[in-house]
């Protein structure tokens, strides 16, 4: 009622401004309420649990302060191994699928016959569920009947055939190769969108000035991709620290614990070892590391 009254008083601008401030929040309210209930509250809950010793089942919950966090960094060998694997995975993801995605985008941005089909083919793996991808590749890596060893033996490279997922040294790289196969399509599409947004006049002007292909790429294409890079790199970091599906389906963290990552180690503790507090602490470590790694980069890019 008061807002209607305010509207009838055009000579009172101060009160009118108040009404304008309120309206957006009313529109936001449904989404905000949903967000608070289903995202913020569970987050708060998991943060509280991370300071507890709790089996996730009983009513017996003990406050233990930062003990879970201390254990992650100073006591748990596997957590440190998982963190190292996550860092390696992240570096690999920043380098390999993004580079391949960029190369494919540049190639498929040109007028090629069948480029729509090629785009669909390269993007295809990105829409497959990672669990299905993991199972298919685990079969391909099967030491006895797998496609990869079969091909190697068929082309005279049988000496390279091995249990790719069963050998400690190759298990993580072999799993990562699967991630590359499934992860090239997404950066490719983002780069493709960004490439199509580059004004062609700049290329034409540069060509008239005698620029070669490499100069065009370094001086026009790459600067124009800066904002796409923000999205691609940031999501690469975030998704790398959330890696779970492929490890779970392909190696189950093995052999031994050699392919454990923070995501699987969190799951094992929270759901299989009945250490809900410790699992929640690992989840918060994942979130914190991701935040620390991603935010400064975004800020720097924003300033530019």
């Amino acid at each position: 009622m008061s807002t209607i009254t305010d509207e009838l008083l055009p000579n009172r601008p101060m009160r009118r401004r108040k009404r304008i401030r309120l309206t957006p929040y009313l529109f936001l309210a449904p989404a905000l309420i949903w967000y608070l209930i289903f995202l913020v509250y569970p987050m708060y809950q998991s943060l509280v649990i991370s300071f507890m010793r709790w089996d996730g089942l009983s009513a017996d919950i003990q406050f233990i302060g930062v003990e879970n966090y201390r254990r992650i960094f100073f006591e748990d060998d596997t957590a440190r191994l998982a963190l190292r694997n996550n860092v390696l995975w992240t570096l690999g993801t920043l380098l390999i699928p993004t580079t391949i995605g960029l190369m494919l985008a540049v190639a498929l941005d040109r007028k090629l016959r069948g480029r729509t089909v090629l785009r669909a083919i390269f993007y295809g793996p990105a829409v497959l569920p990672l669990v299905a991808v993991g199972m298919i590749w685990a079969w391909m890596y099967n030491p006895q009947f797998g496609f990869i060893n079969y091909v190697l033996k068929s082309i005279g490279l049988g000496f390279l055939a091995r249990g790719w997922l069963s050998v400690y040294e190759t298990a993580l790289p072999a799993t990562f190769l699967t991630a590359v196969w499934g992860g090239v399509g997404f950066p490719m599409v983002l780069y493709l969108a960004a490439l199509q947004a580059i004004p062609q006049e700049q290329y034409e002007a540069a060509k008239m000035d005698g620029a070669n292909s490499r100069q065009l790429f370094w001086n026009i294409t790459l600067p124009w991709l800066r904002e796409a890079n923000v999205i691609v790199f940031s999501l690469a970091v975030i998704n790398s620290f959330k890696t779970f599906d492929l490890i779970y389906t392909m190696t189950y963290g093995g052999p031994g614990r050699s392919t454990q990552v923070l995501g699987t180690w969190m799951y094992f503790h929270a759901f299989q070892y009945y250490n809900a507090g410790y699992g929640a602490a690992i989840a918060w470590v994942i979130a914190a590391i991701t935040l620390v790694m991603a935010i400064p980069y975004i800020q720097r890019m924003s300033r530019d």
Partner: protein
Amino acid sequence: MFDRKNLMKLLALTMLVSLLASACVATPPQAAAPAGEQPAAAQPAAGGEQITLRWANIIDATGQEQWKAVVDAFQAKYPNIRVVSESTAGSGAAIYPDVLKTSIASGSPPDLFFMWGGSIAQPFIDAGQVMDLGPYYDKFGWHGKFAPWVVERIKSDGKLYGVPYHALGMGFWYNKTLWNEKGWSVPTTFAEQEELCAKMKEAGMYCVSIGGKFGWHTMRVLDYFLEHHCGPELHDKLNRLEERWDHPCVIDSYATFQKWIDNGWVVPDFLTVSPDDSRFPFFAGEAGLVLEGVWYEGVLKNNEQNIADYDFYLPPTDHTPLRFSAFPEQWMIPSGAAHPDEAALFIDFITSPEVQTQFPINDFANSATIGVNPDCNEWPLTCKWREIILSAEDTYPPTDQAFVKELMDGFFEVQDAIVAKRMTPEEGAALMQRRVEEWQAR
């Protein structure tokens, strides 16, 4: 063109959602209410009140079809009770306990649920989330209804929190037609077992096929070596953590495992091969043995193998009595069940020898109920197993039902390192003892 302002907004939103999602991954459900008082074995709802009984299990689609007749018979007898099956099939013990845990912790448990024995069931007991079924044993006369070793195995602190469902044992399965052709016979000592493996190797075969992905398939072979080298008494003490895991007999067991691998007796590179996939070298005649359970006759049938070609034997341990790996499966009732009396009534019905004889479905072939026998023409090897299982003087549990999961993963970690020869047997035993001490300290 990317508009920078919009792009940054989009990015910020994407980042925020992704980050928050990562923090929410492990958000466990609310703490469960304290376990309620144990209800007396009261009379089930009679007559008028319509009740829906929620029954959590891991029965697959084929099994559900078979169970329908049993459930229909129960519902015909008790028309006021409607049984709703909530199945989490196909995951084995990997996911089902998580599903169960979530439903219990969220305050919406089923009325009864399927569970394995030992350490897989223990967290539910320790958390006070399942009922002591002693009063129902008295009420329904369940004492003496089941194989005694199964009842003993599911007891916790002398109490019965479950009702036996299956009694399952494991042994070496082999292709007897192939063995007859080769002139091989079933070994009766551990030395003969190793001689047989050597003969298989000479014949261009592997001795045993293993799928090591989840650890438990490899564990069965290591358990066998532990039983042989440590003997029944010490093996049981190791399982109860009453003996040190750097004991010489553990070192010998690890050394034997490495010997089997070095000799080429095990299908190589098996550490992350799925247990199901380990059957292919066996079916193809490339491996002579698999260490599997009574259920393997069904697996052979499902894979269109000729049952007449196959047989099994208990792995020779050189100890008396000859123990083999065996474990129970059971039905449990959550403390927070809405209809515990009706759940007990349903359990009584489905475990009764009369019902199981009247409905000879596959799931009753390995029943823990005394007096129930499968059709021996249809299930000859299961019949043979039942005689062994129900009359067994003693058995040993698979280690994954003796240890809690966290400690068990330490066992798997060492086991994998031994298989991959990243550790000597002495180093493996020392690390295993360290894992035990770390776990005990927590």
